[in-house]
């Protein structure tokens, strides 16, 4: 991984026309929270600044106006406009871009993307679990992509997926096959609702983490309680490594669960106490 040179900001794409849904997708609710709020809160756990990308005519919309907005500043249509507008607004930032209509997106998926970021590429993105092609709407877009996207759009094209197929992008294998499933129709919404509200929905666990030595200093705390969807210590470390900017890779650590050394792939249970153990130096 190349050392990241630009900070990463978050962009939630919420400027779509929701034509197939026949109602504003940003307002769809899951588990009592709007899609837009869910996406914003999720994003805010991974980046220092998060914006909602909207069309200029949506800026006064009360659902959106509660959040920092990034208005479309280039012409055309589709998500490429939001991505280009963000890159233009903060040329010194890379952007973790997500669509607001990804109800199955999780902390682990964003954390893995952040830790795998290659700032020397135009973008870092997942491959689709369906067809293996790049997923542009859960991806990190680097500043270098700004000029290339402009040329791409000037050539009469607007599909960001096509752009990623043709350009230098780091592509990751999917972490969770349905994480990037988006919701376009009322039927898909009903299915997603059922799935999220059913008992077999991805579990979220309350996990206690204690930090020692270098990790304690980098986290700025000696413990925290975390609500996480990470099912294993390995994915939990991916999540908190991104959040706290830990310099140690997982291969340098050991892990303990409930006061005893543990396997990285152990299934975590609610209330587990986890300690990531940096290289030791007794004596």
């Amino acid at each position, binding site marked *: 991984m190349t050392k990241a040179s630009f900070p990463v900001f978050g962009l939630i794409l919420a400027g779509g026309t929701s034509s197939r849904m026949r109602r504003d997708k940003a307002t769809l609710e899951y588990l009592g929270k709007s899609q837009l709020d869910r996406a914003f809160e999720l994003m805010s756990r991974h980046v220092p600044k998060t914006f909602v990308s909207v069309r200029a005519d949506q800026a006064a919309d009360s659902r959106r106006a509660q959040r920092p907005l990034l208005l479309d500043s280039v012409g055309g249509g589709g998500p490429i406009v939001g991505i280009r507008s963000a890159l233009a607004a903060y040329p010194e930032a890379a952007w973790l871009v997500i669509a607001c209509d990804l109800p199955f997106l999780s902390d682990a998926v964003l954390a893995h993307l952040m830790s795998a970021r290659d700032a020397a590429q135009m973008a870092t993105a997942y491959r689709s679990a369906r067809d293996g092609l790049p997923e542009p709407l859960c991806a990190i877009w680097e500043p270098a992509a700004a000029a290339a996207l402009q040329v791409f759009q000037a050539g009469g094209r607007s599909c960001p997926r096509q752009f990623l197929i043709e350009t230098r992008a780091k592509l990751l294998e999917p972490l969770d096959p349905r994480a990037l499933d988006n919701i376009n129709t009322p039927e898909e919404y009903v299915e997603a609702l059922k799935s999220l509200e059913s008992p077999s929905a991805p579990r979220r666990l309350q996990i206690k983490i204690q930090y020692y030595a270098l990790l304690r200093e980098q986290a700025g705390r000696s413990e925290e309680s975390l609500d996480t969807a990470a099912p294993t210590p390995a994915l939990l470390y991916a999540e908190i490594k991104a959040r706290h900017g830990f310099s140690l890779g997982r291969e340098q650590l050991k892990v303990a669960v409930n006061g005893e050394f543990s396997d990285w792939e152990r299934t975590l249970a609610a209330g587990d106490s986890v300690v990531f153990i940096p290289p*030791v130096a007794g004596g």
Partner: protein
Amino acid sequence: MTRLRFVAAPIDTDTARRELQDAGAGGYVSFEGWVRDHNEGLAVTRLEYEAFVDLAVKEGERILDEAMRRFPIKHALCMHRIGALAIGELAVWVGVSAAHRGEAFEACRYIIDEVKHRVPIWKKEHYANGDSGWVNCDRCAAAPRHSDHDDHEHACAKGHAQTSHK
């Protein structure tokens, strides 16, 4: 009482040594690890030790069990300081008593080596140039794990092999 103990105050080696006394022991070996004023080319001014005590005590107990099984010794004990230490202070102490000196030396060496490599204890060095760093974490973060042979022991072995009278 566990046989790997963490103490925040100076280690009382006389008291610790008395716990190892045994009518069947013909010798006693101890190792003392001291805070050294340099490491890997840098002048060290002080150290801090931190431990994940719950697990450290369990892992320490396993190491001492292993030593008792591997070597025919009578008793063994390890004391480790935590907190801030000055140059010259005693950071770790290992004591072993046995019928014969050979196994006491070997067991003592085994215990200190395993403690250094397995027990969740961390050492932060403060340098004369104002920097500080976690040993094996900061400067070695990109490098492979430290090797098993120990080349930066800030210690001075002290073998009190008392003469066996048999």
